[in-house]
């Protein structure tokens, strides 16, 4: 099953990140531990490793673009896998999480 990778929180104070460089392209094979991209945080540019193996199926944030933590960054899965449902579902899923978290903070 394909895995959705969101903009990681690479430091405790990071709110959003910018993709400084993609080290993998769509269609590339990815091993666990491979560096996927270099991500600029509020503190430094850091390498972001993959915790999954498979093929890079989708890039959600282009090189040079920034996005808040938890935005859809990439999808890794099996070559040729249908990921359309993940692409459509991803935004609403993260919104749900955000409201849940906001609610938890209010409590």
């Amino acid at each position, binding site marked *: 099953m394909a895995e959705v990778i969101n903009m990681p929180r690479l*430091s405790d104070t990071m709110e959003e990140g910018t993709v400084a460089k993609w080290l993998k392209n769509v269609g590339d094979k990815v091993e666990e531990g491979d560096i996927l991209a270099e991500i600029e*945080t509020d503190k430094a*540019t850091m390498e972001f490793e993959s915790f999954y193996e498979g093929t890079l199926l989708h890039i959600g944030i282009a090189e040079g673009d920034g996005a808040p*933590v*938890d935005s859809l960054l990439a999808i890794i899965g099996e070559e040729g896998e249908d990921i359309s449902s993940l692409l459509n579902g991803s935004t609403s899923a993260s919104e749900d999480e955000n409201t849940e978290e906001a609610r938890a903070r209010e409590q």
Partner: protein
Amino acid sequence: MKKITKEVYLQWYEDMMFWRKFEDKLAQVYIQQKVRGFLHLYNGQEAVLAGSLHAMDLTKDRMITAYRNHVQPIGMGVDPKRVMAELYGKVTGTSQGMGGSMHIFSKEHRFHGGHGIVGGQIPLGAGMAFGDKYAGRDNVTLCYMGDGAVRQGAFHEALNLAMLWQLPVVFICENNGYAMGTSVERTSYSTEIWKLGLGYEMPCGPVDGMDPVTVAQEVSKAVDRARSGGGPTFLEMKTYRYRGHSMSDAQHYRTKDEVKEYQKIDPITQVLDIIKENNYASEEDIKAIDKKVKELVLECEKFADESDYPPVQQLYDMVYEQEDFPFVEHK
């Protein structure tokens, strides 16, 4: 020293593999924000723990360390599910979710933390050894620190008193080459940290901290000395960490080639080579261990995921003695 048998090598392989995968999982869930705060991982240093555990009497000896402290309690017998839950801040954690990454404790297994202040655990370790000696018990305390911590005054005060009072303690510096992002070379006139013991005439020496066999031998000698009334020892483990100081470390102070050089003498690979050379296990056996390790890590993750956060009321527990917290305004 207890003999290092086939069973020991296989146990080392399984334990070290589990510790590494446990830490890898934490790196993963950290960026998913399931674990908050700071996170310092042990990848690369596993031989220090594996060798030390072999030298200890786990029915009575104590351990205390700094904040790179997730896998030590697991090695001493704490349920890894509870350690993972503590990192998640869940009520099922070792400190009911109130300690987090840097403060894992288990009184039952004599793992005394988990300390966030650099070097703060060193006098505490000496004090624990003092307590055992004073009470006439023959427990030994193993007190760990990083290479940065030996530049703290508390280290020197503790070594002096431990020697003066001949305390049953083994001080172990895990020198992974970098105090956060600063190399030992940049901060030390003498880079042979073990020599700091000489100033107190304490038995001391350097140890190959990438090889569990050497670690086990040297720590055994030190533990035996402490238990038989011979006083403290100071050992410098020359080791290496593959990941950053903490998760927010971009590691610009070292090259990738340097990391790769150390991976050639990786403790897990070293043990696996011995297992293969001596036919201690078949390829299938090894695969079965790897599978077991992977499943156990997932089990820990699931347990932590599904556990509850502590009730809000618990915030005040263990802070004020009065149960009705008279100085806190209730809403």
